[in-house]
């Protein structure tokens, strides 16, 4: 085992681990952006406790390490917006108001928050994501955009336009997937119950229904800075990693692990069937769902996510998924 020399000092060109604040060879400040894993990812450094970031005339301070909170000191006339459930505390001087949301019916069906709020200064207001991980700041230059997976938004400055669009990553299956359908032993049991007249009479009806699955979520949040630079803050589970995909470069990630991406990065569902012997039971997990990310552009992933449950039944239709059968 060796400590990795994954950092090359841009001044003296000598390799080092890049763990310290300065190059051990020449003392030049370490540029964290130049430190990557062997696979090409850069771990987003957790924002230092009590670090302050200037946004317009306002400031945001990130405090805490396990479940960090973003504490905004809003200047008079400046504001942020956020999903209501991330609010932690605020001073009475902060003015809260509902944010007008378009396409409420679709948002409700997609599980997106129906109520978003705006907060205007002067005063302090703080947000946290209620899960162990990191708070990531995504500063946007004027006119720049970023796509953020649903449920990750913590807060955004009011100069940033918010929209949301279809993720266009989905597949549909035929058949219900209640608990009694999982497991070979239970399938045998259900056959027995059916023969004995004790089975659930509506199970066959459910099997004939089409189920729609959105491994990434049905929609992706889209943020665009206006004429002024802006800030989007998101919550990540566990550690967050980022990398730049070159033009034409592609990579497979587990769909729920995706945090954000540049709009220039395209997405496609990809299914792998591992090389296997006889496939006796359908729930053996003999396929893997992936999200193919196609460059150019920046992508961010998190190391802790809620896994997508694949029912394991045959696909009825997909959003143009590609397949790989390993033999």
């Amino acid at each position: 085992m060796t400590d990795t020399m994954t950092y090359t000092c841009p001044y003296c060109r000598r390799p080092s681990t890049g763990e310290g604040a300065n190059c051990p060879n020449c003392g030049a400040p370490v540029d964290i952006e130049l430190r990557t894993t062997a696979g090409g990812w850069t771990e987003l450094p957790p924002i230092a406790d009590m670090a302050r970031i200037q946004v317009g005339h306002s400031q945001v301070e990130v405090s805490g390490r396990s479940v960090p909170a973003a504490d905004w000191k809003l200047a008079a006339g400046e504001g942020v917006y956020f999903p209501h459930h991330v609010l932690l505390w605020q001073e009475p001087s902060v003015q809260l108001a509902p944010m007008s949301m378009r396409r409420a019916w679709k948002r409700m069906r997609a599980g997106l928050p129906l109520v978003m709020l705006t907060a205007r200064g002067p005063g302090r207001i703080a947000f946290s994501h209620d899960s162990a991980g990191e708070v990531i700041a995504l500063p946007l230059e004027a006119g720049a955009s970023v796509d953020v997976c649903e449920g990750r938004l913590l807060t955004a400055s009011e100069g940033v336009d918010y929209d949301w669009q279809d993720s266009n990553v989905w597949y549909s299956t035929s058949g219900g997937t209640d608990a009694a359908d999982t497991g070979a032993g239970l399938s045998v049991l259900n056959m027995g119950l059916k023969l004995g007249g004790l089975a659930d009479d509506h199970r066959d009806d459910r099997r004939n229904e089409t189920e729609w699955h959105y491994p990434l979520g049905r929609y992706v949040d889209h943020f665009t800075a206006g004429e002024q630079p802006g800030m989007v803050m998101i919550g990540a589970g566990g550690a967050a990693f980022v990398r730049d995909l070159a033009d034409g470069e592609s990579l497979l990630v587990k769909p729920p692990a995706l945090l954000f991406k540049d709009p220039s990065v395209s997405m496609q569902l990809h299914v792998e069937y591992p090389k296997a012997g006889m496939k006796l039971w359908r729930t053996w997990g003999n396929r893997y769902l992936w999200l193919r990310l196609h460059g150019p552009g920046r992508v961010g992933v998190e190391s802790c996510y809620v896994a997508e449950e694949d029912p394991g039944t045959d696909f009825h239709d997909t959003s143009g998924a590609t397949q790989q059968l390993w033999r």
Partner: protein
Amino acid sequence: MTVTDTGQRVECQWCHAHNLPEARSCDRCGAPLDQRDRVSDAGWRQAPRLRDLTQIHFGSSTVQVDGDMVPVAELALDAADSVFFEHHAMLWKDETVPMSVMDTPGGAKRLLGDMPFVLSVARGPGHLALSRDAAGELVVLPIDGSAVVELRGHALLVASGTMTYSFSKAPGLKTAILSGTGLYLDRFEATGEPGVIVVHGFGNVFERTLVEGEIIHVEPGGFLYKDASVSMEVISVDLAAGAEGASKATQGVKAARDMAGRGFRGLKAARALMKDGVSGAVGQVLGGGGAAVLGEALSSSRAATFMALTGPGRVGIQSMYQDRATG
């Protein structure tokens, strides 16, 4: 490993390998060598927290540990090497990494023990990353020679392809029901070539070595791994036994109340098992959830359940787990 004769060695306190004096991390398992003197008063030593971006070598491949709170194991696989793991641990991979599945022994026993029927196998060349989606630590256990390690179910993150995988039954029905570790333990041994397994423990991981005949009681949920030479049984410690001055009549009343309590909890357990009908009850029992319910019903309200581990050999525990309420 090859060590040039410099007349001085640094012994790794994790895997006991000898390293060059100037080495900062163990060449075999990645442990920082300055951890060797960290031993608690009780004899436990914390598993070495691997430095971010530490690389561990096995065969011609490497594992690099990224992240802190929810660490990621990033593998750079050589064409001659392979690894196996549970499929839900996958985070991202190169498209070119071939996937296959490993048929595992056991059949119906695995179904009964809530163990995966197949393990995923990835073969080089290429990159692959795995994480367990929970806050904790990764520990690397190099295994060679006659060493055999038994591991709590689902705690494995990844094992090198040279390892032989099987499983062993928890001794005795009482142990199987009350231990909280499931009916079976995963078992790894090196046949021929040495290998490594990377284990994920919730929270922090601690280890101690028991001498022959030494016994330690561990809360079942905290158990993580042990050498096969360490025997295991579940014991109940009567919390009321120490009460002094209790008359025989009082003890008789207590005993009757305990029995009534067990009967009541038995009814509650039966109701919980049957809440989804016959199919649901069988599903719970087959899926392992029923064992916990039965364990609750069978335990005395005045007894604490411990896993008694008897040396010689290593024992590893984790500091974060969902405890099974006593009584």
